[in-house]
C-alpha cells in the first residue's frame, strides 16, 4: 500500500497553548464580494486591497492609524449629554443614550485626541457612526469647541473626521445650534492662523455637512464616501426621479469643487504629514 494512503503524521500536534486566537469574524467580505482575513484588513487600515473598499471604522481605529506608533492622549473623555428636553418618542432619549453607551462602550458620538503625526502635533476630533448614527448633539458640539481651544493652546492644527447622519433629533434645537456653535468657534481657530483640516468619511450628511465638515481650510475625503446635505432617499422622493450613479460620492464632490482631494486611508499618514508640513514650513 502506498504512503499517500497511510497517515504519516500523528493527528493534530499543536499544543493548545500555541494555538492561534480565532477572533469573531475571521473574514471580511466587501460589498463587491472580495474576501479578506480580518487581521490582513487591519494591516491595510481597514481597506480591502482587491477593490479599495473602505470599511467604516471608529475613532479608536483612526487614532491608532494616524498618530505616530498609535500613541495619543484622549481629551475631554468624560462629557455626556444632559437631555435638557426630556425627549421621548417611542423610547426615552436617556434610555436610548444609555443603551448606546453600553453597546458601543463610548460616551457619545465623538472623541478628541492629541498626538503627533511624523513628529508634528495634531488635535483630532473624530466622530463615531456607531453611536446613534454619529449624530451631533450637545456633546459633539462641546467637544469640538474644546478641541479648538486645546489646539489654540497647543498652537496645533485641528483635524475633524466627520462620519455622521447629521443632527441628533432627540436634542432638537440644541442639536441645531451645535452647527452655529462649531462654525462660530472655528472663526477663533482661524484668528490664530491655525490650520483646520476636514476629513469627510462615509457617511457625512445633514447638519454636519452644513457646518464644520465643509469649512476646512482643506477639505479631504475618503474614496467612495456618501457626502451630502440632504439624504439620497429624500432627494429621490422630492424630485421623483432616480439619482445618477455616483451622485453624492466623494468623487462627485471633488468634481463639483467641494473637496480638495481624496485620500486613500492606506496613505493617510504620509499624505497628512505632507500637508501638515506645507502649513508649517
Amino acid at each position: 500500500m502506498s504512503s499517500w494512503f497511510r497517515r504519516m503524521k500523528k493527528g493534530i500536534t499543536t499544543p493548545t497553548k500555541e494555538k492561534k486566537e480565532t477572533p469573531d469574524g475571521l473574514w471580511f467580505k466587501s460589498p463587491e464580494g472580495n474576501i479578506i482575513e480580518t487581521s490582513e484588513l487591519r494591516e491595510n487600515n481597514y481597506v480591502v486591497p482587491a477593490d479599495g473598499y473602505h470599511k467604516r471604522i471608529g475613532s479608536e481605529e483612526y487614532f491608532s492609524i494616524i498618530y505616530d506608533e498609535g500613541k495619543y492622549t484622549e481629551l475631554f473623555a468624560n462629557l455626556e449629554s444632559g437631555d435638557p428636553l426630556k425627549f421621548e418618542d417611542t423610547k426615552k432619549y436617556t434610555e436610548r443614550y444609555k443603551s448606546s453607551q453600553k453597546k458601543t462602550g463610548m460616551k457619545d458620538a465623538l472623541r478628541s485626541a492629541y498626538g503627533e503625526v511624523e513628529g508634528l502635533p495634531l488635535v483630532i476630533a473624530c466622530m463615531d457612526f456607531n453611536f446613534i448614527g454619529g449624530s451631533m448633539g450637545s456633546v459633539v458640539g462641546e467637544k469640538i469647541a474644546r478641541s479648538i481651544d486645546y489646539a489654540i493652546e497647543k498652537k496645533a492644527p485641528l483635524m475633524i473626521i466627520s462620519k455622521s447622519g447629521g443632527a441628533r433629533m432627540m436634542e432638537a434645537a440644541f442639536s441645531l445650534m451645535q452647527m452655529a456653535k462649531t462654525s462660530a468657534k472655528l472663526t477663533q481657530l482661524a484668528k490664530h492662523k491655525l490650520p483646520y483640516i476636514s476629513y469627510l468619511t462615509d457617511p457625512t450628511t445633514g447638519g454636519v455637512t452644513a457646518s464644520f465638515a465643509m469649512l476646512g481650510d482643506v477639505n479631504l475625503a475618503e474614496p467612495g464616501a456618501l457626502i451630502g446635505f440632504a439624504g439620497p432617499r429624500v432627494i429621490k422622493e422630492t424630485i421623483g426621479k432616480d439619482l445618477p450613479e455616483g451622485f453624492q460620492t466623494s468623487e462627485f464632490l471633488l468634481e463639483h469643487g467641494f473637496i480638495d482631494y481624496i485620500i486613500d486611508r492606506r496613505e493617510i499618514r504620509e499624505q497628512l504629514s505632507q500637508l501638515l508640513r506645507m502649513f508649517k514650513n
Partner: protein
Amino acid sequence: MPTYLDFEQPIAELEEQLSKAEEIAEKSKVDASSTIDELKKKLTDTKKEIYNGLTPWQRVMVSRHPERPYTLDYINALTEGDFIELHGDRNVKDDKAIVGGFGTFNGQTVMFIGHQKGINTKMRQYRNFGMANPEGYRKALRLMKLAEKFNKPIVTLIDTPGAYPGLEAEERGQGEAIAKNLYEMTLLKVPVICVIIGEGASGGALGIGIGDRVLMLENSWYSVISPENCSAILWRTWDYKEQAASALKLTAKDMLKNGLIDGVIKEPAGGAHSNREETYKRVRKELIKQIETLSELDNDTRVEERINKFCSMGVVLED
C-alpha cells in the same frame, strides 16, 4: 373668504354672527350696537382663550396659515414701501425663495433679507415654497457683506420649511453654502437681528439665522426638523406629528426658556394673520429697540458677544 384652522371654528362662527348683525343693523337702521359690542367682546375673548391655549402642533399650523404675513409683507410695512430689492448671487442665478435689499427703516438704511413664500399656487411654485437653493444662501451672504461694507444693520426674516433637497442643490453645494453663512455671519461687523416669522426648519433657517439677537414671533416654530419628518423618522409613521411637535420643544416660549433665542414678539390675539397692522407695529417697535441697543456696542465687542452666545448653547454633563 378667510381661512380658518380646525380649532378656530368658534372664531369663525362669531365672526359670521358679527358680520350678520352688522349687516342687519345697516339695512334695517335698527340700533343693534349693544349686540354688536357684545359679539365683539365675545370674539376678542374667544380669540384670546383659544390662542392662549394652543398646543405646540396648533402653533405650527398657525405658523403655516395661508394668510400669515410673509417676508415681503413685513419689509413693505416696515419700510413703508421705501425698499430696493437686490437680486442674484453673482454666480449662478437669482433664487426666488430668498429676497433681500436695502430699505429705509426708522429713518435709517437697513439690509432686509428673508425667505419668501408664495401667496397662491403659482407664486408658491415660483418661490419654491420658501425652500432656498445654495444660490439663495449665497445671495443672502453677498447682501450681508454689502451691508457690512456700508455699515448698515441687517435684519433677516426666517420662514422656511427647510433648505431645498434637490439634485442641483447638492451639485452646487447646499451644505457648503449654509456652512459658509454660519461662519461668515458670526464675523459680520454690523448689528444682525434675526426674526423667525413663520417656520424655522433646521439648517435652511439657521443659514440666515446667526444674529446678535434672534427673536421669534409668538406663533412661529424653530427646530432641527419639522414635526412631520420627526414623526416619520422616530415613530416610522406620519401619525405622531402632534407628539413630535411637543417633544421637540419648538415653540417660541420653549426656545426662550431653553436659552436658544433672545426674545419673543407677542402676536395679537388670533395670530399675526388676524391683525397684520398690529403685528407689524410690534415687530417695528422691537426692531427699533434692538438696533438702538446693538448700535451702541463697538463692532469687536458685538462680534465677541455673538460668538460667546452661540458657543454657550448646549447641555452637557461632566463627571
